[in-house]
């Protein structure tokens, strides 16, 4: 009997080269792929928004976002993804689909997206300048504050974007991008940021 290993590979596994990229000197941008997460799409059933909200509150201790926001629960982030729906993002194994199924039984339909996306964290002085080349959203701090989220597009590709907690006084933007587009979009981000200098890394730590 053959011996199999079921090793996982991030869709950015090949494209991501840890280290500096682009202009030399102080990097304007830090680009980090976050690996090992669970991501579940939760969609309320017809007329069951109230029940879904209640279930969310009971399970996560926070209400599900009803507007484009990312809400931090103890060990998960609930990210609005459309009317009557949100994504549950958690470290791998925390809130997997099977664990959430009983929570939302009857109130919402669940769909596993854990492998459908890559998660990229964008930060640094030039984070906004870089994202302005990719996103038509206004990311001014007065408009897109901590916890703001958007279901939007970058480079004609759907993404989920939200602002995490600031790090060292600088804004952190998180991006969920579709896995099969991830490598392509990654290169586009690098091209956009090359003039500022980029530090590339990956991590299993959640911001």
């Amino acid at each position: 009997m053959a011996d199999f290993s079921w090793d996982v590979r991030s869709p950015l596994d090949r494209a991501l080269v840890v280290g500096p990229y682009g202009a030399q000197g102080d990097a304007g941008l830090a680009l980090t792929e976050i690996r090992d997460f669970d991501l579940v799409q939760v969609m309320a059933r017809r007329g069951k928004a109230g029940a879904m909200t209640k279930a969310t509150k009971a399970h996560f201790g926070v209400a599900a976002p009803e507007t484009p926001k990312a809400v931090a629960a103890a060990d998960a982030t609930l990210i609005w993804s459309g009317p009557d729906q949100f994504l549950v993002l958690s470290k791998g194994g925390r809130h997997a689909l099977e664990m959430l199924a009983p929570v939302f039984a009857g109130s919402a339909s669940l769909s596993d997206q854990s492998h459908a996306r890559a998660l990229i964290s964008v930060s640094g002085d030039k984070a906004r300048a870089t994202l302005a080349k990719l996103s038509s959203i206004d990311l001014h701090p007065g408009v897109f504050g901590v916890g703001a989220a958007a279901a939007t597009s970058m480079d004609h590709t759907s993404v989920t974007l939200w602002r995490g907690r600031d790090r060292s006084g600088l804004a952190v933007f998180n991006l969920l991008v579709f896995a099969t587009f991830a490598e392509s979009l990654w290169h586009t981000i690098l091209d956009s940021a090359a003039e500022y200098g980029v530090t590339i890394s990956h991590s299993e730590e959640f911001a």
Partner: protein
Amino acid sequence: MRIVCPFCGERELGEFTYLGDAKPQRPAAGADAVYDYVYLRDNVAGVMSEHWYHGGGCRAWLKVTRNTLTHEISAVEPAAGAGAAKVGA
């Protein structure tokens, strides 16, 4: 053009896909009625109600009231089944 998605806020045209006149209602049956629904258009020169899809965003279908002479958008509302989880809730 920018459309104020009732769910997402104001967004760039590129996130949306256009379908067309939102006035005709799909008839259940009848060749003439369906022909009319599928093929004939008022082709309004002025204020028109239209179906747009926020496919590059929240995937809601929207009814957009827009002037075809000026492109001015005066109202945007969700399609009946967008956000329907709140129906009766």
